[in-house]
Every structure is written in C-alpha cells, then in structure tokens.
C-alpha cells in the first residue's frame, strides 16, 4: 500500500502475480539497468546519484549508501563481492520478506546496477532461514532473469557479467550482522568479526565486499531511472525516498506499508487501521525490537524519519513499528524481548554472552513476582556495561529496550516488585 507519489519498491502489487518478470517490466523494470549498461554511465556518476538521493541503509543502521559504495577499492585486482542482507531477523520486521515475495526483480536489478558500479561479478543474497518460500520465489526470479539476459554473462548484450546466488541461512538473528553474515556464507559459525578491517577492504573470503539491505538495493532502480533528486524529494533532507514500515501489534490492519520518509506516525497508524477496537495507544517501538520504546503520546507527535525519531529518543531502525495498547504489561513485554536477545547472542563477547542472560533472568524474576527493589538499578548498570562494549551491536540491541522501558515505565516495574503482580 502506498501513498502520495507512488511506490518505489512495492511497485507490482496491483498485479495478480506481482513477482513475475513480465509484470515487473510493465512498471518500468530493468529500464534503469538497460540505461546504465547501454549508455555506459560512469560508476562515479551512479555513486553521485545515490549520494544525491540521500538513500540510507534500510537494514537499521542508516549508513549513507552512496558513501558506502564509494569505499569499494575501484582498481582492486581480483574478486570483489556484493552481498544482499535479507537475513531479516529483527522482531517486528517483515518488509524484505515481501520484497522477495512480491517484487524480487527490483532486488535483482538493484544488485546488478550496484555490481556494475563497483565492478563486481558475483553477488550473494543471504536469505533468512525461516522464509523458505520467499527464498524459492527469489530463486525462481533469478532463473527468469538469467533466461532473459539480466543476469549471467553479456547482460543485455553488453560485456557486463554478473550473477547472483541466493543463500538460505538457518535463522540466527546475529547473522543479520553483516560480518557474521559473511562468516556464515563462508561456511563458518555466524559470529561478527572485529572491525576494522571493514568489509570494503576485507569482506567475503577476505575480498572487498559491499553489503546492503534488500530494501536498499531495491531502491536503486528508481533512483537511477527517476534521478536521485526525485527520490530525495519523496522524503526529507537526509532521509530520502520512501520507507517500508512493518506495522505489527495492536492495530486493526497490520502489514507492510511503503510511505515517504517523514510521514507522521499518526498517518501510519491510521493506515494500519488504528489501535484495535476499544483500546487506546500505550506505547510504540518504532524501529524494530532492539530500539527503545516510546510512549504513545510522544509517538503521536513524531514523523517517521531518521532525525525525527532520534530527536524523540529512539531510532527508525529497520522501520518495524510495534504498537502496544493499554493492555500490555511492560514487564511481560520486556521479558519477552530480553529472552530474544539472550537466545540470539552469539556468545563471542563476554558482556553480551553473560549479560543478556543476566538481564533476562532479572526481568523474568520481576515478572514472576520475585523482583527486588535494587533490581532496577542493577538492570540499568548492566545495560551500561553491555552497550558499547561488544564487537557488534547485539549488545546494544539487548540493552536499549531495557533502558527504554525503564525510562518510560519504571513505575510498572516498581509496582511488579512491590505487589508481585501486574499493574495492567
């Protein structure tokens, strides 16, 4: 579902079979790739266009895509890779899944353009282990693209060569961290690498590698076809384009929504059918479960773009919007969130390996009536000792929900500890 100037990514939803090459071509598919290849657009122009678009990484970190591409060593002799991160594991997020299901060719075209720009011949798409049918759909799309000459050798009759391999993961959340993902493709245990060196210099199999999120790559065809400026103007300065929001929780009409960056949350909530009948909004996690929760009344004044949400005290993250109404016990909610990070820690760094379990056990105790008054300060201290102390951001992801919950809903935790039962 889209708003305003029309979708950038979910462009084929009006067709009965949105995923086919035939339908993708009807909405201008592969025009951008054809233009790039036949006009031999210099790579630096493409990077400049992507920079103009203010496209930022859609996986959660929001790193400027054009800048990332410019890090790839241009004159490197030997193999280089691009990798698409479809290891969509952040609780609440399901947007990339729908790209693979409904518009896989947008991803293929975006990656082909990226490959041309960075002089790469091989790409990998790492697909989350639990979305097997999307993986199969993507495989079918790649076959279609190969048959039609959009992948493989001599693409569109030029000497450009690029092939794309899909790799199904096994569902580990941490493999969504880009270097853990690389380790996993290499056949090793998915554990983040210490950076530096960054993937642009030492990536997959030790070769220069650029890793982007599925949505990021899928935005590229539009940027090339319509121009970076037009993409930028869809959104806001520093937050160009549209964004896919996965709205879940206590709304009447949950789902994925493609909206311009900067759309007011109020509008997004409306599109999602509003809070379920008879209930009122309590809280929202605006960017996937690892981002700090914000109270409903704050969210109702916030626009959905990187800067606005950061100003309000959280992050846009992956754009997964988890809506909670007044029936939600925040202690119970945090217990569930903390359990996730406890289960998904890779075990490499001490603070995360040991700390996530400790956090979960304390919250679990509080939820089950065994909390102690000093637990809350202990939780916050542990969060301080985890966040920023680990190789990857999973430690941060475990700490931020705790900090967010205690910042806005400490009273509920105190009530739980004192009365050994829930406030709501």
């Amino acid at each position, binding site marked *: 579902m889209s708003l305003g100037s029309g979708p950038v990514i979910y462009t084929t939803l009006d067709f009965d079979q949105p995923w086919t090459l035939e339908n993708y071509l009807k909405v201008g598919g592969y025009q951008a790739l054809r233009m790039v290849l036949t006009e031999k657009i210099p790579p630096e122009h493409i990077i400049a266009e992507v920079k103009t678009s203010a496209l930022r990484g859609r996986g959660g970190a929001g790193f400027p895509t054009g800048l990332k591409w410019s890090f790839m060593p241009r004159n490197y002799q030997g193999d280089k890779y691009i990798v698409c991160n479809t290891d969509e594991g952040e609780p609440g997020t399901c947007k990339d899944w729908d790209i693979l299901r409904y518009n896989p060719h947008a991803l293929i075209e975006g990656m082909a353009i990226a490959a041309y720009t960075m002089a790469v011949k091989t790409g990998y798409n790492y697909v989350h282990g639990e979305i097997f049918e999307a993986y199969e759909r993507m495989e079918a799309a790649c076959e279609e693209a190969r048959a039609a000459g959009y992948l493989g050798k001599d693409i569109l009759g030029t000497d450009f060569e690029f092939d794309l391999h899909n790799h199904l993961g096994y569902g*580990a959340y*941490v493999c969504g961290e880009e270097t853990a993902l690389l380790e996993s493709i290499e056949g090793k*245990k998915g554990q983040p690498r*210490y950076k530096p060196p960054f993937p642009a210099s030492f990536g997959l199999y030790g070769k220069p590698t650029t890793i982007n999120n599925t949505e990021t790559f899928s935005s590229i065809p539009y940027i090339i076809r319509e121009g970076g400026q037009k993409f930028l103007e869809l959104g806001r300065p520093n937050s160009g384009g549209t964004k896919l929001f996965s709205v879940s929780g206590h709304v009447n009409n949950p789902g994925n929504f493609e909206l311009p960056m900067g759309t007011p949350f109020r509008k997004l909530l409306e599109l999602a059918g509003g809070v379920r009948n008879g209930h009122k909004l309590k809280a929202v996690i605006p960017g996937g479960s690892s981002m700090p929760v914000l109270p409903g009344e704050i969210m109702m004044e916030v626009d959905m773009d990187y800067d606005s949400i950061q100003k309000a005290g959280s992050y846009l993250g992956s754009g997964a919007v988890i809506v909670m109404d007044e029936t939600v016990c925040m202690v119970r909610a945090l217990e569930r969130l903390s359990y996730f990070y*406890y*289960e*998904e*820690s*890779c*075990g*490499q*760094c*001490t*603070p*995360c*390996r*040991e*700390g*996530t*379990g*400790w956090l979960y*056990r*304390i919250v679990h*105790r509080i939820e089950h009536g065994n909390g102690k008054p000093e637990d809350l300060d*202990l939780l916050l201290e542990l969060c*301080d*000792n985890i966040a*920023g*102390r*680990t*190789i990857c951001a999973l430690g941060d992801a475990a700490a931020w929900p705790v900090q967010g919950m205690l910042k806005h809903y400490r009273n509920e935790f105190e009530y739980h500890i004192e009365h050994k039962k829930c406030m709501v």
Partner: protein
Amino acid sequence: MANIEIDGKQIEVENGCTVIEAARRAGVYIPHFCYHKKLSIAANCRMCLVQIEKAPKPMPACATTVAEGMKVYTASEMAVKAQKGVMEFLLINHPLDCPICDQGGECELQDQAVGYGSSASRFHEEKRVVLHKDIGPLVSAEEMSRCINCTRCVRFGQEIAGQMELGQAFRGEHAEIMTFVNGSVNSELSGNMIDICPVGALTSKPFRYTARSWELSRRRSVSPHDSLGSNLAVQVRNNRVMRVLPIENEDINECWLSDKDRFSYEGLNSNERLTRPMLKQDGKWQEVEWQTALEFVANGLRQIKDGAGAEQIGALATPHSTLEELYLLQKLLRGIGSHNVDFRLRQSDFSADGKQAGTHPHPNLPPEGEGATVSSDGGEPRQFLPWLGMSVADLGKADRLLIIGSFLRKDHPLLAQRIRQAVKKGAQVSVIHSTDDDLLMNVAHKNIVAPNAMADALAQVAQDVAAKNNAGISGSLLSGERVVVLLGNFAQQHPQAAQLQSLAQQIAAATNGKFGFLGEAANSVGAYLAHALPGTQGMNAATMLSSPRKAYILLNAEPELDCANPQQAMAAMQAADLVVAISAYKHHAVDYADVLLPSAPFSETSGTFVSTEGRVQSFKGAVKPQGEARPAWKILRVLGNLLNVSGFDQDNSEAVRDAALASVNIVEKLNNILNENVGRAMPDAVGEAHPTKTGGFQRIAEVPIYSADAVVRRAAALQKTRDAAVPRAAMHSAELEKLGVQPGAQVKLSQGQCCVYLYADADDRLPKGAVRVAAGHAATADLGAMFGTITVERA
C-alpha cells in the same frame, strides 16, 4: 613509526602495533584473557578495554592499532569501569571453585579478579553448568563450567597446531568449547592448550590433583627428546618431578612444548626404574653394591681385552645420552684400545663417514703412535657433522623448503610448527618421502615414492634444478630467495643415506640454498662433538652387530627398540660373553645382560645437549637420583679409574664438558658438506623394486613419536594416546586386495627368521609395493631391518 602516549608515558612504536603491545613495551599492564601474542586477535573477552582520546566508547587494546598522537588511558574512570564490568560478567557463571581447582595459584582469572573483581557478587541467579568432556589422556576438560570462552585453545589448534580439534559449539550463554562429536584431541602439541587456557578449564590430566603450583620449585632443564633442545621448567616437589612446563625461548621452542617434552616426565617416575646395581650370578639377578658391580665390569672387560683383544669390545649409546656421558664412553673404549663406539644405532649407511670436505686432526683422538692411521696431510679424515645447517630461527625465515624423508610432525613437532608458520607467510614446502602423512600445512609439491625410489626422485630434482626447470619441486625451489633443503630421520636411516645427502647437497648448491639435517635426537650433534664414533679404526654400530663382539657396553640403549635391525642386534647380545647395560630402566636387558648399572635420567644428572642447530645447552639435575642410581658420567669415570685409563679425574660434569669441548671449534666442526659424490648403494639394501616372490614388500618404518627413547616409552599418559597405539601394517588397498586381506584383518609379517602379526590398514597414499610397519615398538621388535624386504601374508 607512531608516537603515542599511554597513561602519560611517551612511546614510539611501529605503525600497525596494537595498543596492548605498545603498552607492554611502555611497562603498562593491560588486563586481558583472549589476547595471546602468538595467536590471532579475537577481541572477545573485552577485558582489555581502555579509554582512547576522542573515542566515544572504550576500545579493546588488543584489537586497536596505534595512530600518531594517540592518547591511551588504561586506568581512567571509563577504562576501569569497563574492565570491572567485564570482570563481573566473567565471574557470574564461573564456579569460583578456586580451592579445588588445579589452576589455583597460577590462574589469570584469579589474579585479575583480585584487581578488578568485587568482593561480593550481585548475581543471584543460577549459575550455568557446562558438562565435562573426555578429550583424551593428556588434556583434562573435566570442569568446563570454568571456561570463559576466550577461544585461545581453539585458535591454538587452528593456527599453531594446524588442526581445529577444539571449537566453540552452540551460541550465547550456551556456548561451549568441545571437540567435534565426542572426538579427542590428538595433536602432538595439545599440552600447550593447558598453558594458554587462562582458567582451570583445560588442565593437565597426568598432573591433576597431585600438587599445588606454589608447592613446586622450578628447575631449568633441556628436553632430552627431539633435537630442538626445548627449554624446560622441571617442577619438583619432595625430590620428585611433578610436571614439566616450557621456558620461553623465542629462538628455540618459543613459548611452546611438544607433548613429548611436556608429558614424558611420567617415565622418570616409572616403576621400571632400575635403582640398584644388579649382577647376574648363576643365571639369577642379584642386587649388589656399586663396588662389586663396577669391579665385575672392569674385570670382565680386562679379561676380554687380554684374551680376545680389545676390538672384541663394542659400545652402543643412544644420542639421547649427554655430551659428558658420550665423551667418557668413547674415551673409556679408546683407553682400553677399542674404537668400536657408536651412537648412530638406527643408521644403516655409513659410507659418508670420513668424507667431509677438508681434513684436520681430531682433538679427541689418541695421540699418534697409538695406532691411528693418518691421512696424507697429517690429519684424520674429517667426519662430516650432520646438523641443521642453519639456526632454528633462520629455518623459520625460509621461503622455499624441500623436506626429504621426514615424518616431520611426529619426529620434530615444534620445527614442523615453525615451518607451518613460515608457510602461512608464503613459504612453499615440497616433500619427497615414502609416506604422505598430513603435515597440516599447505604442501606445494610432493613426490611420494617407495624407499628404493627415493634416490631417483631426488636425483630428478637435482637434475631439474641444474637445468633450471621451472616446473614442480624444481620450479618452487628456483623461485625462492631463502631455500632450505632438509633431510629427515627417514633419509638419515635410509640405506642410501649418503647418496640422498649428496643429492640434497647438490640441490641446495644449485638453488643457492642452505642444506641441513633434522637431527634425530636431543644430542645427535653433541655425540659427534664428543666423537662417540668409530673413526677410521673402529666398527660402526651396524658392523659391531653384524660381526658380533664378545662384549658390549650399552649406554641408555635398548637394542631391540633402538637399533636399525633389532633381530641382528638381539642375536649379537644373546651371543656375547659380557653385556653391560648402563640404563635408568630395568629393560629387556635382563634377558641377555650380565650386569645392570642404574644410571640417572636427564632430570637427575647434570649434563649437556647440543641441539640440531649446534646450540650447546648445559643443565643441572632437577632432583637427586632415585635409589642407588648414579649419573652415567660418574659411572664411566669410575670405570675409567678401575681400568687405569688416564684422563678420568673430573670432579663434576662441567669439567667433563670442558674436556670434551676443550679443543673443539664448534663453528668449524658444524659442517654438513661431503667432499665427494657418493656412489649408489646396492639396490638390495633397500629392497627390490618389484617384489619378485609373493608377499615381498619394501618396509617403510617410522619410529613412533612416543617410542623414540627410553623415557617416553614409559610415560604412562603418552602411551595412552592415539600416536602410541600398537603399530599396524599399512599398505595400498590394491596390495591388500592382491593378498586377499581385508583392511582391519590380521597379516603375518616376516623378516629373517621371525614374524609378527599385525592388523592391516589400507592407505592409498602409500606407494605400491611397500608396507608401513613401525619400528621402535615392542610389537615389531622381533622383525629385522627398518628398510629392506619384508614378507606379508594373510594371517
């Protein structure tokens, strides 16, 4: 170079240096667990977090490289808070069972918990339990709940030992260090995992619960096993060796020890130790006083000398004996008029003797007039001295290596490790050998041929390098700048050893490289320096046994295990009138010897070993000799006195050493080079190329790593390892098929008059027409020569 400041101290270090290393040089200690200078950076323990100016969060000092003008604060509020936070996390699931932990007193976690831990825990949840694992007889993983998942052991396996035997399975809090599906750790370097484990998770199985670290005193010593000369800290309590640890020496063993060096100490306390002199009287062994035993020996030797002639007396020593012992042994023999002394018990080709380039008088020879034949320029023909041909450190810098006839990993575990590191940095290794065991490193080229084809294979390379052929082994060697050609134990024991040596020498010369020998034992070079050799007038080890003598003196030798042809050796022992065994053990000699003289092993005597790189290392006894045992140099000195030989008046081993080395110019003596090409040995010696009669095969015999010397043979835990398993007969599967033998079935192997039964293995990496049957082991001691023809039949 970068100028940085650490806690206010200015220091200049090279670019790329890590903060933790820069701090070490500046004298600032940064706490750490996962960091180890010899291993890759994991940055997972997070204990080394420090504050770096302008960085918003604390940074791991182990993984952060210096930058010009960087200011590091290792003890600022931010840094200490981070370090204490990590320590708290490390301890929450740690059992804190220090009072019953073997690591107590030498535990990095314990030490650092004192500095960064809190006196009480804020963790009131249930602690994690990690199940114990049985990973073999050497390394105990009985208390894996203590593990802090630093992965040092994992990285050691991958990076140093060359095989990933331990890994971290599962994730997060469930992460555990374990082997792959209940496997065991079989690396010949596994004990180092115990040293680098910063906690009590991996401990020494033989040492467990026997002593606390603070009860032990440390005595410096030198490994008596392979020829590297690893530096040892022998740890002692109540006059008993309790364990052995490495002493770091970057030029030799770095900070590592092979398992043989580390765990062989159990053999020192074996109940097979000979602790009183014994005499066989009327066919029965009697414990006697030293005086009685020594007088018996002196009288016996005198009688044979006077009756049959001194040349009827021979002495066989192992190269694991000290320089002092070997020096006095040859001096004693020469003093009573025999030159029949040798330590090269497993050698079969002596044709290179006396063919070193140039001649010079040997200082340890009797003066002229006592029957010495003198070469034309007035000196004894020089004995070439097989040594490494370079320093061990230089070996690690080689960029092209040709390794000829070596069971490298098992015969020289730490040299193999050094070469492995060189390969990682780009060196190319080529191999010519009769077996294709995994060296756990990339091998650029290899030529695996039957023993009798070794010389041809090497000759081909010599021809190729001379012709500048850029393919294969030749091409690899020609493309190098620091070429090294090495002859292993197998090449030295080979019946065409001199020819292999000559060819290797040619190859090294044509590639402008260095050429050397991987010495067989701790004192192989020292034995040459002590001139424990027959020279031109005596019989070498092989001749002494093929033409049996009437009397033998055995110094630390067990002929059925230590000699090239045990069958022949045993026949000679059985037939002799007098066999004197100087040994630390009551070994098989009880069957054929007439007197047993208990000697002190390396831990109970002072002495000197000269390593394969020519490094002279003296050591003192770590404990007193057990029972009545005496250092062998003292036994020999008294025998010299009893036999009225002059020059046997030393009061201490240093005096013996000084006498042995007095006029030896070691630098000049260390010379591998032969002065002439050596002709081809007769093919018969190696075995027929193609078996002409049914079941005739060429024997390929290695000496298994834990069978190589008397001490290690009696080290209980090592004897339980996979490497110490009973030898099997391995052959190409096509050969097994021809014999109608299934892998795993028994075969009958015969050499000479005797046969043994072993289980057969199929190994298609072996050359056809050959069978691999280990020597040096009781199960094969009835067989004949290590090389040559052996008959294999269905059992």
